[in-house]
């Protein structure tokens, strides 16, 4: 399986600080998002900044400030360009009454 990230001995590794948790309140689909930055404009917490590369999805600069209000998703005119991803510790559970099966928010 391709994990998306290559690794090999001797590769260049950066000394990075830990990332804030949760790091990804929103997920962009770069194939749908056209970088119009409407979500950047309307976000009540000023979580994003525009991408320096025109046409690319915005940067989530302050993920830990996200209020999970969904405004960026709601106001985006390109369905599927952006979706909300709740923190793992905050994903609700439910049960199907007829079968007793248990599910959780994905």
């Amino acid at each position, binding site marked *: 399986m391709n994990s998306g990230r290559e690794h090999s001995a001797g590769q260049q590794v950066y000394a990075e600080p830990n990332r804030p948790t949760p790091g990804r309140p929103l997920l962009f689909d770069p194939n749908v998002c056209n970088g119009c930055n409407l979500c950047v404009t309307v976000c*009540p917490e000023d979580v994003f900044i525009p991408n320096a590369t025109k046409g690319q999805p915005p940067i989530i600069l302050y993920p830990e400030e996200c209020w999970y209000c969904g405004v960026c998703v709601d106001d985006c005119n390109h369905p599927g360009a952006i979706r909300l991803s709740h923190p793992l510790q905050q994903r609700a559970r439910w049960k199907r009454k007829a079968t007793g099966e248990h599910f959780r928010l*994905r």
Partner: protein
Amino acid sequence: MSANDRHLWPYPIRYGQTDTHETDVLILGGGIAGVWAAISARRTGARVAIMEKADTRRSGAGGTGVDHWGYAADNPCSTITPEEMTRALVDNHFGYRSGISTYILASSAYETLLELESMGGKVRDTEGEFKGAPFRDDKTKLLFAYDYDSRYCIRVWGANFKPLLHRQCRRLGVELLDRTTATALLTEDGEHGARVVGAMGINCHTGAFVVVRAKAVILSTNRPQRIFTFSSEHRGAAAHRGGSNVGNGYAMAWRIGAEFTLMEKTIRSPFASPYSYPTYGTGNALNTWYPCTIVDANNKEVPWVDCNGLVLATVEERCHPAAGQKFFLMGGGNASQPHPGLKQYAGPKLIPDLEERMRKGEFTPPFYADLTSMPWYERKAIWGLMVGQEGRTRVPIVQTYEASGFDPSKDMLQTYDFLRGQGMREFMMPQERTFGEIGVAGGLVTDWDLMSNIPGLFGAGDLLFGSQDHVNAATTGRYAGARAALYARGAGLGKLGAAQIESEKNRALAPLAEMPDSIDWKELNFGVARVMQNYCAELKNEELLSLAETWLADLEQNEVRKVFAGNPHQLMRALDVMDILTCAQMIVHASKARRASSEVLSFSRLDYPENDPAEWHKYIVIRQDQPGRVHTSGRPLGFWGPYQPNYGPRHAENLAAMQAGPAPAMP
């Protein structure tokens, strides 16, 4: 790219530069109260500007919606009068709820909703989706919630109300100063306690300093949050009323001598917990989820009882008053009130001894909200209308859960009651309290013009003392806008104090200087919250409160100057926490001044243990009579006087004045 990659700041940096504006009515905070104030002030013909920290289109606690338009006693189907509604709400808080804002709310909620409808807001079931439901009035097509007999609470499709109000502001020519955080008020010639003549702020993208001269100023910046709890990594999720609402308006007004009351009221509530699930995103039977059936792990239904303790056999009965009761206030119990309220207004709720009976083995956790067994109209009203139009639910709950396969006709959403939670939220730690996140809280004292003791300074929304919620914000905003515009007609532009402007500019830009021992804004917020948890939480006495004072003053002297901001966004957050510190100090002052315990205020003094003694059953009012000196006084309950004689003439004058300006634009 991730947040950890280094990016160039995308906006032009304008540190040190000043932008100046001039207007008649300046509104600080373009949330629900702010946009309504702007619209009504503009309708009188006044020039209006809004200074908004975020972006007015969606900002504030109500930016993503409202589902229940509460306490609309003026609607044609209501069986109770505004006077009865107000008396019930004030009495249910044992007098500690503002009669001024509550009467404005109960008398003009429907009138305000009609204005929203004229802007394109959906307030009735025009498509007949709920035909046949017992909560639908077929003549008006209005849908009601909670008490289906008294019909004072209207269910609305409010998820897009804020964008509609924003559009109306733009159409009417309101000047929008977005992404500008207000930091201080301007007073005549810079004098403490003198008439307010404008405000100052910082642009959160460019760092420019902003000065606005105005004839009247309306504060509508909501309340302080993060006073007792803070989470650096789930900060946003933990701020129930949104990250922008930190009490800047309280701090600003306090600094110039405005009066505040009820500031000592803090309640034990999990509404600020970063360990909670999304609000309204777990099963429960309160508020937005009322009157949902709750079942245990074996599908056994938890019984409901009325205010007399009588077990209710059907779902239908949960929505009607008990025998001998004219109407009930919110059913399901109240998650945002520290006490159960008066029996005469109590609504149906789950059996109060559920926990005991669970421990005896009668019920097995976990519990679930069983929408599947509800009548179709209740299921559809809860999931889709209420959960969906309620703030932070359309995308975060309905769309996201359904994308994961949740189906309200088949699935039962788990509750967290008795696991760790309570109602719909979870506590983080034992000392966890909130000041402003939820409930009727302390705030600005005003007269019937909604003007404070400082001439020219008005208030609206959650920031008013003893007030809460969306419709309160809409109605008081609308009323304050007209009052402020009328005041502005008779007031010229005041004289600015050059020294006041210079010193604020220096204060507001100070965090931009990095020092060897710099800290960030989050560190200071943790520091404040810790002092409040330790010295001003569940148990209070003179010694603890004096220590709270000492340690907050210590933070003010030693840590505030160290807070570093690397860009204008961080500068806004840094200034926020400084105001959170000021608000914490106001809470401690008020707590020292109340030398009695009070059950109804959730206020416990070990050195004055008697609860609610008659001589202390009053409002404590605090203000700074000169910079740094706190003055305390008392006001009797009901100090606002009679309702209609105060409200009626002003309301008529407001409506007449609102005919004078530009016609309200139709969609």
